[in-house]
């Protein structure tokens, strides 16, 4: 009886010594990244874990990745991955030359944008306005901001709280299609909306 108690206590102590671990997976697009183990057990290492679907015990001097194997992920690991939020999604809206008027095609994108925001829990919306190179830089800074605000105001009119949204104008600094100055370019007259 006493012996059983000691064994249980010992097991618990051993459990308490468990070391941290890393499970490396391919990303949602199937691309495989890597994790470098810069320090382990108090010493620098040059180990780079690049093998997908692998498990690595951390804290040893030379961490080695092992395949997850046929047992696959543990239940709590699967639960964690299922709990990850959906990836951020981007939308592009285009404007008529020199105005804050959406092109007819872009007006339909607004519906998809509204649905995307409504479908998310705790959403955050980043609105970034741009212009083409027609006109002066200062004018374009203002116009890009107005375009972003136009979109933000519309979203607010659809019932989305302004505290979840932010708007910036980047003028002609980030062209979608690089052009010379004073070039009318529909692809550059845009507002980018990122929904997280």
């Amino acid at each position, binding site marked *: 009886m006493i012996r059983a108690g000691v064994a249980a206590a010992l097991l618990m102590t051993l459990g308490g010594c468990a070391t*941290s671990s890393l499970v*490396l997976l391919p990303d949602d697009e199937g691309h495989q990244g890597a994790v470098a183990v810069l320090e382990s057990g108090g010493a620098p290492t040059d180990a780079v874990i690049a093998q997908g679907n692998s498990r690595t015990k951390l804290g040893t001097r030379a961490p080695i990745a092992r395949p997850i194997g046929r047992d696959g992920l543990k239940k709590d690991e699967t639960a964690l991955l299922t709990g990850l939020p959906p990836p951020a999604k981007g939308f592009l809206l285009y404007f008529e030359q020199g105005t804050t008027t959406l092109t007819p095609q872009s007006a339909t994108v607004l519906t998809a944008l509204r649905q995307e925001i409504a479908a998310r829990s705790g*959403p955050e919306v980043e609105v970034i306005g741009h212009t083409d190179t027609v006109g002066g830089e200062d004018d374009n800074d203002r116009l890009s901001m107005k375009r972003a605000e136009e979109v933000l105001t519309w979203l607010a009119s659809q019932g989305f709280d302004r505290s979840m949204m932010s708007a910036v104008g980047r003028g002609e600094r980030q062209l979608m299609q690089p052009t010379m100055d004073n070039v009318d370019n529909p692809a550059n007259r845009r507002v980018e909306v990122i929904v997280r």
Partner: protein
Amino acid sequence: MLRLSLTLGAFALVAASPAAAEIARIKQSSGTAAVERNAQRLKAAPGVQLLPGDQLVTGKDGRMSLTFIDNTRFALGPNSRVSVSEFRYDRTRQKGSFVTKVDRGSLAIVSGRIAKSDRDAMKVRTPNSLLGVRGTKFIVAVPK
């Protein structure tokens, strides 16, 4: 002159916005889940905004998930304590630095733009290791 007033205007706009220092937002939470900020303890709920230095804490039935402004995504499992020790991000240049400390529990991470911006711009520290994140999806577990 025009440029100067415009810049000042833009600054005022950012400064007036309550979301100025926001680095992430909680998307889901369940069970006992809280954000600890200095002496404050905020209940984790969808839409709660995070600031640099915040600690995320879950109880034995707790979970939470969040998305950072550089698109990094986190999911915390039960019995976890995770701190965002450092988070700097320049939205325009899409560069920054990000250090997360996992004291205990489990954390799934899908890295975002900071990890892509420079080698080891995103790091994760556990009690016995320091990881440099090079654009990927992974789980770190620190048993009690």
